[in-house]
């Protein structure tokens, strides 16, 4: 396997080349510091993303016009399952008021990561 990546650990943005993998050791080149190699390894072997989205707010009235509640994954989420997580968030309907930090989905997709509200809305 051979993949080109841009390192995002710092603003330099080294152009990384990762080769090998699948049984043999992953070789990373193009990085100016060890963080680049670590980034390439994680990005290729188990990429994660912090997911932020909104879910539907119920009970919004003229005095509280909020229609969407912003939320986030409590930790970076496995990238290949982000689509499923988003579908679960979009299916949610949460009654106001809601306070920041409230768990909206516990143990999402059984991966031990929660979805929490990021804003207090009343």
């Amino acid at each position, binding site marked *: 396997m051979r993949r080109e990546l841009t390192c*995002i650990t710092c603003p330099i943005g080294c152009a990384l080349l990762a080769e090998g993998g699948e049984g043999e050791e992953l070789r990373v080149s193009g990085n100016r510091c060890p963080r680049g190699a670590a980034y390439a390894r994680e990005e290729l072997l188990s990429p994660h993303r912090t997911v*932020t989205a*909104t879910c539907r707010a119920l009970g919004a009235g003229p005095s509280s016009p909020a*229609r*969407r509640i*912003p939320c986030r994954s409590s930790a970076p989420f496995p990238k290949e399952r982000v689509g499923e997580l988003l579908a679960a968030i979009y299916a949610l309907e949460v009654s106001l008021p809601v306070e920041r930090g409230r768990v909206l989905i516990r143990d999402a997709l059984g991966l031990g990561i929660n979805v929490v509200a990021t804003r207090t809305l009343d």
Partner: protein
Amino acid sequence: MKELGFDAVVIGGGAAGMAAALELEAQGKSVAVVEREDRLGGILCQCIHAGFGLVEFQEELTGPEFAERLEEKMRGRAISTYCGCTVLGIDTEGPEKIVACASSAHGVLRLRAKAVVLAMGCRERNRGNIRIPGTRPAGVFTAGLAQRLVNIEGYVPGRDAVVIGSGDIGLIMARRMSWIGCKVRAVIEILPYPSGLTRNIVQCLNDFGIPLYLSYLTTNIYGRDRVEGIEATPIENGALAPAKAFRIPCDTVLLSVGLVPENELSRDAGVAINPMTNGPAVDSYLMTSVPGVFACGNVLHVHDLVDYVVEESRRAGRFAAAWLGGSRPAREVRVKAGPNVRYAAPSRVEPGRDNKLYFRTMIVKNDAVLEIKLDGKVLRSSKKGHVQPSEMMTITLGAAELEGAGLDSAIEIAIT
């Protein structure tokens, strides 16, 4: 009509306004914050993505979380907050300034203040500002407006989008649109390098296979009632290459083509504007050309991190409090933007204390050298692994470094 008096009135209740007000209150001054929206937080409320707070709170927060942390600090403090309240004008003629406001809740308000802190933030450049030819169909949005529609009001602006300009808000919206099930066809950038941060190119475009066209101009927008597509033309050797133009079908155009400090109120109040930043020209106290009127955050110059906005605004609050207490800069030294530096803010420093400066480069370069000179003599020289216009830079000039400064001295910041 109600009339109230304060030591200081802060205009704008976003990150800058809250930070300035908190500092003024901590220094024992009576403060009011006037905010146009129904709640505090400003633009942070619609920036639901993460990436804020690493400097200020040492953890990665979303925009709403960052705003709420600041709001919590405001609770229990003697700060009067007027939300849903629009400032109509600032009268700076008399010994006290009068901030005239109007709101449905409070009617017409006149706030008397000895000092005013401008913290109104910035506004997006739009289609008119960059003059994209074509018809005028529905479906053309600035990226920040689309962000508000999606994240706060819960509307989807379109199904099939092209983003014009590669500013961070446009990149963030490319990901957001993808995550709500829309197709983002392309990002078109006139410059040969992206305007946004590298991590946003990687995580907002590459993750979704969205092509980034660098050195391309949008030469047309098509559609009668609704956008039907755009035309992109490559720029080769500084000239358009019309033979290579192509059309991208879409029903929505998002513009992420820069931000301009919102200074209508400042101009009306007689505040002089620095043409390099489009924000007020300020002295070493972050005070504008009108005595007692201070400026901080995006209304002063466009920042890329809210953490820096808060730091600068806290300083503005501290300087405003010191000014109210009768303190004035003993003497000041000019700061010049030297080679490859667009501007520095503030553009004056005060010898005898530490002075923090923010500045922006005009070039993209690895292994650059940053030099600070006093009257041509190098005070400091440091290596920078990478510089680019989208990353604001900062230095603190120490008291000792400015010791030799005379009356006509100037500091120069250079990047080579």
